[in-house]
């Protein structure tokens, strides 16, 4: 069905593929009454990996994290830590560190006492005293002088870092981060995520990160699981998820995209085939990999083209003539569209175009207006899914 069928976890593509599996979910399901929050999820997270669960609200990512932490028990399936089932093991015995969106710092304790709390139940590393351990962790998160402060006197970003230090102090095997940045403003979020990433790679700790922000997920992760309706739709390194989305949902959720549906017109030749696009009276040429299911005329196909792969020229522009030539050669697709709206983003402008009965997203540097010609190389189109007539 999709392009990564041979490697559903994308394990082979991630870094350090020889590392042992730290956390494994095997057919894990969580139901609340009739509602299924997490449905039959199977994932493997390797030791030292930065693994991210990303998806829209209600997709089950937080519940998945809570199942790993042990705050919830699965309705079916098994969670394994280092190959051992943790069924029935309470959270306090799982050796996990958890950072919540609300940070959940204990308001009746100082920052130092917060960080030291986990050391009541686990010894600091050999030769390190409790106080030294607290100081080390506060150094690690760049808050060396905060030990005696009241958590409530800290800013949101500082509280988030204290929560990190507290989670890391007992030396957990796995760090679980549940939307730890979503209460912060955008700029601070970018700074902190870089810090989280730095700390993670310094300690080499297995980290499972939950976020609804796909940009954040792409920025920090070794691998990403894009979740929808309680199941991961694609598990792969960020580049793969971005360039080769496995499903229509992933294509639309991760980054800006133009997703097309249509009917296949001819069998592939020279790595290309033609699709008659719905909602527009045009046929576009689409490139195909050898690994793809071979489409046949009459099949339905979904494919996508990123805005940055769409070239735009205003009418009367010299490049428009060139593009038109290329189109006649059959090497380029050319689409006649009109500008509907534009959002100025600084470096670029995101322009929405009307094309047939649908819209196209493009990115330009210069402002655009009126009628334009949009072109793209068939090789820049990614085929998401081809469905034969018999499958329907």
């Amino acid at each position, binding site marked *: 069905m999709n392009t990564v069928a041979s490697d559903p976890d994308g394990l082979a593509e991630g870094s350090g593929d020889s590392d042992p599996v730290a956390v494994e979910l095997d057919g894990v399901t969580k139901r609340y009454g009739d509602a299924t929050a997490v449905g039959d999820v199977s994932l493997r997270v390797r030791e030292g990996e930065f693994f991210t669960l990303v998806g829209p609200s209600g997709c089950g990512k937080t519940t998945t994290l809570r199942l790993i932490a042990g705050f919830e028990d699965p309705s079916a399936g098994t969670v394994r830590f280092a190959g051992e089932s943790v069924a029935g*093991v309470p959270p306090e015995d799982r050796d996990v560190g958890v950072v919540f969106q609300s940070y959940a710092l204990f308001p009746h304790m100082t920052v130092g006492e917060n960080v030291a709390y*986990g050391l009541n139940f686990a010894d600091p590393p050999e030769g390190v005293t409790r106080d030294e351990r607290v100081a080390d962790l506060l150094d690690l998160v760049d808050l060396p002088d905060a030990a005696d402060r009241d958590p409530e006197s800290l800013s949101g970003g500082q509280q988030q870092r204290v929560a990190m230090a507290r989670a890391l*102090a007992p030396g957990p095997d796995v760090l679980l981060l549940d939307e730890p940045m979503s209460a912060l403003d955008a700029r601070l979020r970018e700074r902190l995520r870089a810090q989280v990433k730095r700390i993670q790679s310094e300690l080499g700790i297995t980290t499972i990160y939950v976020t609804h922000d796909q940009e954040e997920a792409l920025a920090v992760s070794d691998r990403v699981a894009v979740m929808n309706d309680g199941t991961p739709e694609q598990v792969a390194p960020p580049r793969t998820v971005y360039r080769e989305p496995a499903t229509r949902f992933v294509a639309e959720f991760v980054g800006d995209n133009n997703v097309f549906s249509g009917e296949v017109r001819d069998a592939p030749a020279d790595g290309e085939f033609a699709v008659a696009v719905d909602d527009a009276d045009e046929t576009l040429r689409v490139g195909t990999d050898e690994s793809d299911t071979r489409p046949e005329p009459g099949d339905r196909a979904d494919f996508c083209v990123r805005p940055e792969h769409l070239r735009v020229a205003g009418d009367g522009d010299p490049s428009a003539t060139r593009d038109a030539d290329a189109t006649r050669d059959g090497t380029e697709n050319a689409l006649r569209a009109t500008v509907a709206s534009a959002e100025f983003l600084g470096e670029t402008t995101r322009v929405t175009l009307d094309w047939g009965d649908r819209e196209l997203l493009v990115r330009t540097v210069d402002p655009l207006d009126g009628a334009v010609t949009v072109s793209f190389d068939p090789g820049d189109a990614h085929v998401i899914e081809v469905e034969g007539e018999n499958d329907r």
Partner: protein
Amino acid sequence: MTDGDDHGGDADDGGDADDHGDDTDDHGGRLARVRAGTEARALTALAVLTSLTLVVAFYYPTATVLVEAVVVDGAVTLGVFADVLTDPFYFGELARLLSGEPPGVVARALLSPDRRLGIVGFTAYQAVLSTVASVALGLPAAYLLARFEFPGRKTLRSLTIVPFVLPSIMVGVGFVATFGQNGTLNAALSALGLPPVDLMFTLEAVVIAHAFYNAPLVARVTTAAWESVDASAVETARSLGAGPVRAFVDVVAPQVYPAVLTGAALTFVFTFGTFPIVLALGGFELATVEVFVYRLVRDLNYAEAAALAVVELVVSLAVLLAYLRYEARNATSTRGARPLPRRSLVPPSLSPRELLPRAGLAAYGVVAAVVFLAPIASMILASVTGGDGALTLDNYRFLVERQQTGAAFQVRPWPAIRNSLAFAGAATLLALPMGVVVAVLTTRRYRGRTLVDAAAMAPLAVSGIIVGLGLLRGLVFGVEIAGWRIAAGGAVAIVVAHAVAGYPFVVRTVSPGLSGLDRSLVESARALGASRARVIRDVELPLVWPAVVAGAAFAFAISIGEFTSTVVLATGADAYTMPVAIERFIGRRLGPATAMGVVLLVVTGLSFVVIERLGGEHRGL
């Protein structure tokens, strides 16, 4: 969490530390696990201990009395019940329905002017009137406290707790001093040249006294709900085109009204089981169910007393259960991110819109002063006034003389004060852990939680007379179990009875704090290695500590003012308390009773301040 996929369901419980497998772990881990198991068991043990205390101190004694309603001479019979249910003396015209007369006839009789309500009917009737009066008197106070800013607002808000914990017998004395024939009301009326009124032994006096008690309760719960209304919800309604009145009706009222209902339900239950107020203000002429149960017990007619008490219990429990179900269904923990802004009491302009509510509040202030301040002031005034109207300390001299020369059978002031303080201290020490344990149990989510809640709250609904009688016969007279005679002194029984009466209030103050805690605090602590029991000790209790202290203050105050079961249990001269002493004095002359009342007021006030100092602000009830 803004993320919608955070589902509820606190699946963990204290016992889950035991049931994980034996991992091949290092020695330290195993030790930690053994310790975690012990802690989990400690929580279970505490819960079992609390249940046992409740069984010994409440359920068993109560049951031994109630069972007499259906067991006569060793045989089970519904005869006593049938007699009570079909006796017009108890059920008025309703009894005719229960004894098989057609409903039409009964309905006509009920509508006729000379209908009889019977004792149960009258009790319900006065409880409804008292509830209406309490709500009517409580809502303006809530409006004032929630919507206006003025100096002393916070103090006034804290003071709303005071009437509820004032000893009822003392309030009775205060009302006699205010509304009695020679009370301050008549003094004021005659000074104005108006004819005197006699409110004593009238329904009005009883209803006002009940409002004195319960209106502040209504005001408290309503204020809390009103303050938690998010201003942006109101602003949203306004921006969508609703006027101020419409926004109030559509947005504020639906959020406040459940709290009003809470106050009303509790008021009904409290006033349905009223005893000392009616005893002091109504006498047997206005006998309510509880007063009549007392009378039947005094006449040693236990079977009928028990049957009547069961009727009372059924009514009160039905209301409490309905309320708990309603509360469970409507439980919203949405705390207003931003409360509604308070207005100044001084009108910013002279427009009718600004003046009208403030004029209303001013009028309310006068009524409130008469209802809430006059009884206390009158009691103090009466205690220093002689029969001739001149100021005198004779009443206090009487107390001192009684202390010095009183005969052994007479009630002396000092033992009463000493007993009250000792019982209250001991009862608090017992009620506090019980209340905290039950609060922890009721804030967890599991099947049948409402039932546990109701069972734990049952002492609020059961006749104090019956509890007292059950303890008297069960604990004081002793029970024989397998040849062993187990008996406790009257003092122990009183402490136990007080603890049982007080601990629901500990639960009620502590559990809102516990359920209001951010769940991720608990989960963070657990992920850091703390067992469930350890989290209670390290995180939850420290954070709800002010509520625990408030609960302790409640338990203490309830004990010091408790009259109903004390009067049954304080048989010997060694176990009477201040409220019992007041009741003994009031039988003769008002003067010494008011003096004793002032002593009780001072002692209660001082204890309350001490407890308050140790803790923080009140939450919950």
